[in-house]
């Protein structure tokens, strides 16, 4: 057709105006359109024409009435307000309308059915928010191994996205169930209730029993007991109880509640809650498993960790134990102190290093310490203790398991002095810091323990004047690698210097300073355990580093106050 027409558009329009089609034809054309069209008068908004598509989309519209009273509220409001567009929901359809002016006296509404688009957009938004919620849930739940924290995160997440109130109930322990709950805009609360009250909450006993979740519509929200939610929560409209799946048994149950008479948990909500509960459950049960392991390890460790040092009269003891960075806080190094017995006023100190690391070394450490404790009760002198321990280890039959050890018997002598009998087996000899700042090596040496049947141990006797200190240490100290090159051993010479620089310091400060110097030396985490145990004869008068500092009090007064002395146990 186009090829036969005159070549200007102006002619075309003139031609079209010239030929006026019959109104019936125009009506038919409008009815054939898939777009819904309303034709109205500008003067009083009377609807003149409703095409077929419009009749289908908006049943109830008829020509002759005014659009102001159309049953479609969105349309009536837009007409009244003179709006150019409106969107509305009518008879289950989403409708978008555009107004077009047609001539001075008429205008038309062109209406689109966007139900599908709206539904898809809503579904996409919902899906995106679910995905984001689950991603956040996964991230936050996986961040902690602490059970209470995981439970708290669970209720926080649930309230942020799933319900007005969330309660997590943990499985019963000794007929008590711990719970933790959160209500929108509230604070987390926690408590316990009796196991026999479980049945009062619809679906809870089943959820904790490991049964599959019961759909929300089967749970009667009216039966929720008053104790489950805060008093001011109001009537529960919808209830959902979901198991929190665990390893062998459920990790707990998640109770979700929505307010208001019309509240529901739709199928999608239930599905989302279930997926969320699966993640929360695995996080909570992992945390529970971790806690069980920690508790078990703590029991095992209790005997292996350095002991609390006793407070002795006239003898100051300062211990320090630094475990290597990795693994548990137990390793091959140890020290122990055995107080006076009925038959002996001496205190026995021991510091040693078991070959190897980790649990195996720790077990041997425990055996060695127990053996020493028994030997102490027999009042065995240090060298004899080493000898018997050697026999005991050899007879235990474990090959390649040896110990280096230094044992000292400590006693007070007169004038506040402290005497020590020391014996070493394959261990670095202890160092003595004298009051004049000199550092001496205790002349004791001996064979490694647990390797050969015949051992030799050279016993040494030393005496400490008030203020002097004897340091027992493990080779982790001298073998700490660091310095400028990062590979050089700290070494005995540096340790001598370090100790000499501690002249006049209180015992705790000496041990702390040595620790600090070695830490600075390694410039990073220590790679081996370091154990130190210092025995010090307490200074009789407050030390004076600069002279003139000592208040004028009698030595007797100081003795009288010695009971107040608080020895720092472990640094």
């Amino acid at each position, binding site marked *: 057709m186009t090829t036969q027409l005159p070549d200007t558009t102006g002619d075309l329009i003139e031609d079209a105006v010239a030929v006026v089609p019959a109104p019936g034809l125009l009506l038919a054309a409008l009815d054939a359109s898939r777009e819904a069209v309303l034709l109205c008068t500008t003067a009083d908004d009377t609807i003149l024409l409703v095409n077929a598509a419009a009749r289908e989309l908006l049943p109830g519209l008829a020509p002759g009435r005014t659009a102001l009273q159309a049953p479609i509220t969105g349309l009536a409001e837009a007409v009244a307000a003179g709006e150019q567009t409106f969107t509305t929901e009518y008879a289950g359809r989403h409708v978008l309308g555009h107004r077009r002016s047609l001539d001075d006296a008429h205008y038309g509404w062109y209406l689109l059915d966007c139900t599908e688009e709206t539904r898809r957009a809503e579904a996409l938004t919902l899906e995106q928010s679910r995905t984001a919620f689950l991603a956040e849930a996964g*991230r936050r739940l996986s961040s902690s191994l602490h059970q209470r924290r995981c439970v708290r995160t669970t209720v926080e997440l649930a309230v942020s996205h799933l319900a007005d109130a969330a309660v997590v109930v943990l499985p019963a322990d000794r007929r008590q169930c711990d719970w933790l709950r959160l209500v929108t805009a509230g604070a987390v609360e926690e408590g316990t209730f009796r196991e026999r009250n479980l049945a009062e909450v619809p679906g809870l006993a089943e959820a904790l029993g490991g049964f599959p979740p019961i759909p929300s519509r089967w749970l009667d929200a009216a039966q929720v007991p008053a104790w489950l939610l805060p008093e001011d929560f109001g009537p529960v409209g919808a209830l959902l109880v979901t198991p929190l799946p665990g390893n062998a048994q459920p990790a707990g149950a998640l109770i979700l509640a929505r307010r208001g008479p019309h509240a529901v948990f739709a199928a999608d909500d239930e599905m989302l809650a279930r997926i969320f509960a699966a993640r929360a459950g695995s996080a909570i049960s992992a945390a529970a498993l971790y806690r069980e392991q920690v508790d078990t390890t703590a029991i095992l460790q209790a005997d292996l960790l350095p002991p609390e040092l006793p407070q002795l009269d006239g003898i100051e003891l300062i211990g320090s134990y630094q475990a290597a960075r990795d693994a548990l806080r137990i390793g091959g190094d140890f020290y122990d102190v055995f107080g006076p017995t009925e038959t002996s006023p001496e205190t026995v100190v021991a510091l040693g290093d078991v070959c190897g690391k980790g649990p195996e070394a720790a077990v041997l450490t425990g055996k060695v310490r127990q053996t020493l404790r028994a030997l102490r009760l027999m009042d065995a002198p240090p060298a004899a203790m080493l000898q018997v321990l050697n026999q005991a280890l050899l007879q235990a039959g474990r090959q390649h398991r040896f110990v280096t050890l230094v044992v000292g018997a400590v006693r007070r002598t007169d004038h506040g002095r402290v005497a020590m009998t020391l014996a070493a087996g394959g261990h670095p000899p202890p160092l003595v810091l004298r009051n004049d700042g000199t550092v001496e090596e205790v002349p004791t040496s001996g064979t490694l323990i647990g390797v050969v049947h015949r051992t030799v141990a050279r016993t040494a006797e030393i005496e400490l004047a008030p203020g002097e200190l004897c340091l027992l240490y493990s080779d982790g100290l001298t073998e700490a690698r660091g310095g400028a090159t990062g590979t050089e051993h700290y070494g005995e010479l540096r340790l001598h210097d370090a100790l000499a620089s501690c002249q006049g310091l209180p015992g705790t400060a000496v041990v702390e300073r040595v620790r600090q110097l070695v*830490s600075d030396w390694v*410039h990073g985490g220590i790679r081996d355990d370091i154990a130190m145990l210092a025995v010090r004869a307490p200074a009789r008068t407050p030390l004076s580093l600069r002279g003139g500092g000592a208040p004028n009090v009698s030595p007797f007064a100081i003795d009288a106050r010695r009971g107040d002395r608080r020895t720092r146990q472990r640094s």
Partner: protein
Amino acid sequence: MTAFTTTPPPSLDDPAFADHFLQLVGDGDEYGAVEAVTALLDAGAPPQRVMIDLIARTQSRVGELWAANEWSVAREHAATAISERALAAVAARTSVRPSRGRITIACVDGEWHALPVRILAETLRLDGWRVDFLGASVPGPHLVTHLHQTGPDAVALSCMLAIRLPRAHAAITASRSAGVPVIAGGRGFGPDGRYAKRLGADAWAPNAEEAVARLSADWPPAVPGSFAGSASGSRGDLHGDSLGGSLGGSLGGSLDGSLDGFLGDDEYTHVVRRRAELIGTAMERLVAAYPAMTAYDRRQTDATAEDMGHIVDFLSAALYVGDDRIVTDFVDWTAGVLAAREVPPAALVAGLRLIRDQVRDCPRAATMLNTGLTRLPA
């Protein structure tokens, strides 16, 4: 000096009493120091004030006296030990039933200045917190294990020296990844806590009092990794200078520690990897330039190498957080300490130059050291 132990009742407002207490800790007089604080408490002084206004202030004076070369290292250490005993005596006199949450307090790995943190621990205890004090130099893994085991509401992390900032960052990141918000404190984080922001801490406090105040209201700062925040905290924001600017009032770059980026760049990595080599070469060249050094004994050599190590470490920290003020602050402070000991700054100048000459292929590092050198007479 014994006058204060009898009459009149001691007062925190009396500067003479503070001097008296300084004297006691400086003389290593444990009994005297404990008696002094006990007398204060008996006279009705609040324990918080005794800890903050007396013990903490005295401790800063001890630090100043050391820096001014009035007190030896040994005396400083002895004074610190006595202050700790006095603090323990104050703590033993007061007990408060925990009414707030639980908090873990630790010094960064390698950090040994424990007294200020101990004071914080005691002040928080008095404020009703349940406090786990892990002590000085806590390795990162030990801290994280503790967090998983106790699930605290906050970690208070102390860093007094800027050279520990990279490790502080590791600890902050690990804590926040474990879902525990971090409040940072200590001079190492900068005078206004600027590095605390950079390293992603949730809050910063310049002293124990403000830490207590900060923690007493509105804690945790926001739900960690809250829903709205996690989407906007994109990874791209976390690098470089945009971080500091985007933080505004609240600290904490992203809301999830595990999403925080490594802050160091190639120059940082380069300097840290070559630490031993940088120090070794500097030492060799120093001997060549100053033949007198061949006569140095091991102690003097160790001390010189340690000084070189400090230059490299402060440079590394400055590169890590991208702020040359760490280098200039270090240079100013060292120059002050040297001046107090009547040591000419030539040695520091030589050290800075020797390291700078080796990092010429790292323009940022070289610029930082040059900026440091401008603080010193040539």
